[in-house]
């Protein structure tokens, strides 16, 4: 074989290797974006893409937090209710008085911290399986939110709260428009990526998920790491709640479905459901893929029942592909 041919062969082999190592969710996201662009080219323009990111930000944020719990081998089903509690509670406490926004946001984070701690303690000390513990939390938190507000949204969210979901900076060089929600998303993703992939805590979390018994024998503080994972998940849910309340306002079902969608996003993004493997950028891309899928089905104008069926099938196919990919790459 000539030198040139060998060189090309080597390059293409490397190319295949790169694609082989690339997360399946990146490819899924890219494919969905391309199909959407065929229908609405505006999504590839900065303004259209930023709008899309703004809509997908709440799910991406909560999925990043959920990843930590999945990585240590659990599930957090309470994130949806926590989002609802954040939205309803903020509206109730702030009641259209912009002066109260900041301390109410702090209070909501405090509540999230408490919820995450309780989840973590129940799972680690009471040894309740996380799926049951967080299911109980889901019901209690939702009940609390409804009891507190009397069953119907109370109070209004002022503009300085809603800006997190709605404010868009204009005349930004290069991008044109930059929604505040996207800035929050980037910050959260950066912090969580650093936490999982660059800190000792992150490395230990992966170890705990992979083999908790071995980790414990090796002196890893398994309990503390698990509790911290639940706390991170709860805090990300509160952040998502602020973004969602800002974007769409107050309602009693604001957070419904986020727990299952965030788990789906994690699986799409290459996380292993029994723990030990996962990547934050992968999960974010998985979450954005889910948002893109929803958008695509909107744009195609399929009748609703068909839309749900298609969404389910694509989700299964994508998750199956993702899991298979992991097994091939070892």
């Amino acid at each position: 074989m000539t030198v040139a041919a060998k060189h090309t062969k080597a390059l293409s082999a490397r190319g295949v290797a790169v694609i082989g190592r690339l997360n399946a969710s990146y490819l899924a996201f890219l494919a969905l974006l391309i199909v959407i662009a065929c229908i609405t080219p505006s999504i590839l323009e900065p303004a259209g893409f930023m709008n899309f990111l703004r809509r997908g930000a709440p799910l991406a944020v909560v999925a990043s937090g959920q990843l930590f719990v999945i990585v240590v081998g659990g599930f957090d089903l309470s994130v949806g209710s926590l989002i609802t509690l954040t939205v309803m509670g903020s509206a109730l406490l702030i009641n259209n008085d912009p002066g109260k926004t900041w301390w109410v946001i702090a209070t909501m984070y405090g509540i999230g911290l408490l919820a995450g701690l309780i989840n973590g303690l129940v799972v680690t000390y009471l040894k309740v399986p996380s799926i049951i513990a967080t299911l109980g939390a889901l019901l209690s938190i939702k009940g609390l939110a409804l009891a507190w507000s009397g069953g119907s949204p109370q109070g209004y969210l002022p503009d300085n709260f809603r800006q997190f979901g709605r404010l868009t900076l204009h005349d930004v060089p290069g991008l044109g428009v930059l929604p505040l929600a996207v800035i929050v998303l980037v910050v959260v993703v950066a912090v969580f990526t650093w936490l999982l992939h660059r800190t000792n805590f992150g490395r230990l979390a992966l170890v705990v998920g992979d083999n908790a018994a071995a980790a414990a024998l090796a002196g890893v503080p398994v309990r503390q790491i698990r509790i911290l994972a639940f706390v991170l998940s709860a805090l990300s849910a509160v952040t998502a709640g602020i973004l969602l309340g800002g974007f769409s306002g107050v309602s009693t079902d604001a957070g419904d479905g986020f727990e299952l969608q965030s788990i789906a996003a994690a699986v799409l993004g290459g996380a292993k459901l029994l723990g030990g493997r996962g990547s934050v950028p992968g999960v974010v891309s998985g979450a954005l893929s889910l948002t893109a899928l929803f958008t695509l089905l909107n744009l195609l104008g399929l009748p609703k029942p068909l839309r749900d069926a298609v969404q389910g099938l694509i989700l299964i196919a994508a998750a199956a592909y993702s899991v298979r990919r992991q097994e091939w790459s070892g």
Partner: protein
Amino acid sequence: MLLRTAVIVAALTMAAAPAIAQSFDDPKEFARQRELMKMPPQGPAGKPWEQHVGGQMIDTSKYKKPGPYRICFSNAGVGNPWRVVGWNTMQAEVELHKQDIAQFIVADAESKDDKQISDINSMLSGQRCDILIVSPNTTAALTPAIEQACQKVPVITFDRGVLTSCPVTHIVPIGGYAFGIYSAQFIADHVAAGAKVVALRILPGVDVLETRWSAAKHIFEEKGVKILGAEFTDGDRAKTKSIVSDYIARYGQIDAVWMDAGATSTAAIEAFEDAGKKYPVINGEDQQDFLQKWKSANLTAIAPTYPTYQWRTAIIAALHVLKGEAVPGPIWDLPDPAITQADLDKYVNPKLPPLHYAMCGCESMPGYPQRWGGK
């Protein structure tokens, strides 16, 4: 999300069951409601919850009993803000008639048919009810239970109906077709010919909502308004906003938005704001957040209602029946007003919660506005 899917599947299954096939496109009912909309209501002026449109009075002297009375109420549930407002209003009405009501016994079915059926059975076997008021959770499932109840006590139904005429009277505002006619007519009158409208619906298979859409579709087709699409939003604000944004991205200018209920109307309007587009002609409902947005953004809008004051009428009717006084029947059609630009200021009140339904007839009732969550 799972629960909602289950409800949708259940609603679809029920809608498809041949034995109780309900048509949501009944031209006779459409014509009847269109007639009723034009008739002046009869009854005390200024109290629409005591008025009736069309129909006749029925004799209830056979139910006459000495007071004070024990009224039993089987509530489908308080699972949405409309029902919360209605329930608060009903409790205030009970307080107004303290001297006539010895006991007000309530069972909350938490939006479950089987629980409501067992509630009705246990109320009739355990308690001594002088009269039973029922707000049925679903039409077909509750029919047998109500037929059995009719044999023991006088029964009054309101809101959703049942497939039997044994209740003394069934209280309901004119109906879904009227809502659809009001809203679609308004939109058609305020847009140019060939204008584009997006229809936003909550979910399929619910009779009240299906009739609204069916009527609106007729009117739009009649008047040549182009329907770009009819989307299901699950009553979710974020979904509504995303769906509307996608439509705007796809079609550019959207002239009007038609909604079968107003709970997510502000989300739809915000989608236009965020996209920097002109506000559409829109219909909402009598929720405070929609009315306030209407006023502050100077929208071209109308708010047809499904008045929560019907919860007052149920108690009033029960007392009339037990006193042997005539009531409208077998169907008591309440007036079904729409809030227009002219009366907007009467109903806007920022001190009330965002999903408070303004057409509650509750302004001069005991506990207003605190009982309804206001300040």
